[in-house]
Structure formats: C-alpha cells, structure tokens
C-alpha cells in the first residue's frame, strides 16, 4: 500500500524546511461512535522520526491532542540536494508508516 505520509521539502542554502502531513485518525479514546454509541478506542501516533541520510534530525512525541491527519513542520541545517529524508511514525497500536524523499 502506498504510504499515507506526504513530505514537502524546500532547500534554502543548507537549510531544509520540512513540512509533512499524514493520514491518521488520532482517536482520543473518549469519543463515542455517533451511530453505535460505543466509545472508540484510542488510536494515535506516539512517535514520529525524521532521519536525513540516516541521521536523526527530529523526533516528535505526540499525545491524542495532536489533530487528526497530523501536520508538522520544522527546519534543519546541513542539508543538500540529493540527501534522503526518511520519515516514519509508530502509533499506540504498534502500526507504522514510513516514506523516503530525496531532497532536491
């Protein structure tokens, strides 16, 4: 299955401006199903990692208070065209998704 993570990177000199968006329900665990009335179990990304050429450039720890279909942006220096930026998340149910982007 295709990754449900999108990454956009803008290079300004050696600074990479990273924006990423991913599909995830980010269920809080306190919401009720409008049809069934049952509580929907918590389901949320706990950790998101960005590696540039294998080197960690950002780790994000999330709670259920991060919005559905989460969006994050940040910048790091020391980037150059041709670098490979890898993004991966893991959620509280142990599911994961990842994607690689070549800077350029």
């Amino acid at each position, binding site marked *: 299955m*295709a*990754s449900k993570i*999108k*990454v*956009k990177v803008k290079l300004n000199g050696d*600074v990479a401006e990273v924006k990423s968006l991913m599909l995830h329900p*980010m269920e*809080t665990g*306190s919401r009720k199903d409008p049809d069934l009335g049952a509580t929907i179990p918590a389901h949320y990304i*706990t*950790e998101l*990692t960005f*590696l540039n050429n*294998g*080197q*960690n*450039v*950002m*780790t*994000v*720890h*999330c*709670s*259920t*208070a*991060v*919005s*559905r279909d*989460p*969006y*994050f*942006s*940040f*910048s*790091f*220096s*020391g980037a150059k065209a041709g670098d490979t930026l*890898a993004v*991966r998340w893991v959620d509280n149910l142990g599911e994961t998704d*990842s*994607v*690689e*982007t*070549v800077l350029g």
Partner: protein
Amino acid sequence: MHLSRRIFLHGSVALAALWAVPRALLASAWPSKAFAASAASEAMTELFGTDQATPSSAISLTAPEIAENGAVVPVSVETTLQNVQSVSIVVEKNPRPLAISFEIPAGTLPEMACRIKMGETSQVTAVVKTDSGLFSASKEVKVTIGGCGG
C-alpha cells in the same frame, strides 16, 4: 492545470535497516507518564523534573486569538535561545495538558509548527528546554462553540 509537484515515494523495504539504529542514539523514549498527567504542573514535573520555567521573550509562540476550530488549532514556536534540546506544548485546560514534544538534535533549528486539539479556552504554553534551563512563553487561545461549520 497546475498539478502539485509529486513527491516520489520509494518503497520502504530498504528503510528497515535504517530504523534498526539503536533507539538510544535517536532520542529519549515516549514520555508516557508526562502524557498521562491531568495537570500541567504534573506533566511538566514528569517531563523535566520541575514545573518551573522562566518566561522568555526570546520565544515566539504563534497561535490564534480565537480558534476557528478547536479540533485543528495551528500552533508554531520559534526561539532565538541557543542549544535547544526540546520544545513542548502544554494546553493547560486539556484533559491531558501535554500535547506534543519535539526532541531537537544539534543542527535542527528551533522552529516548528503543528496542529493541535483544544477542548476549551486555555492558556497555551511553549516550554523550551536548553542546556541552561527551562524557558516558556504563553498565550491564551479562545475556543468557541461552532455554528453549522464549513
């Protein structure tokens, strides 16, 4: 017609090796106790060992005065403080105040943005941890009850 630049997606097979890097080299583990805390001070103490942070004008916290939608509140943090190790966002009135924590390795700039949920009007605080201590900036974000929406 303007189609967006398409990001080429490589298979994730080759990635497996990368993720095998020992976790200790990456960052600290997910702070479950801090995220479970129901009071802001408790979350701070769990995360940093203290709930005291020095207010700093070197931190710029951007968030709306009135959230258009409590489910999606854009928040961004930027700071001129040096040697930043982490940036956390605490929403005082949320049932679990610690919303998110960015672990920042050397070389990564202390500027980031995300979208968070807010249950009600609350003080939103950015807590910046540097090698010389904890600093903070706060802002009140009003959350209102929407109309028909959209």
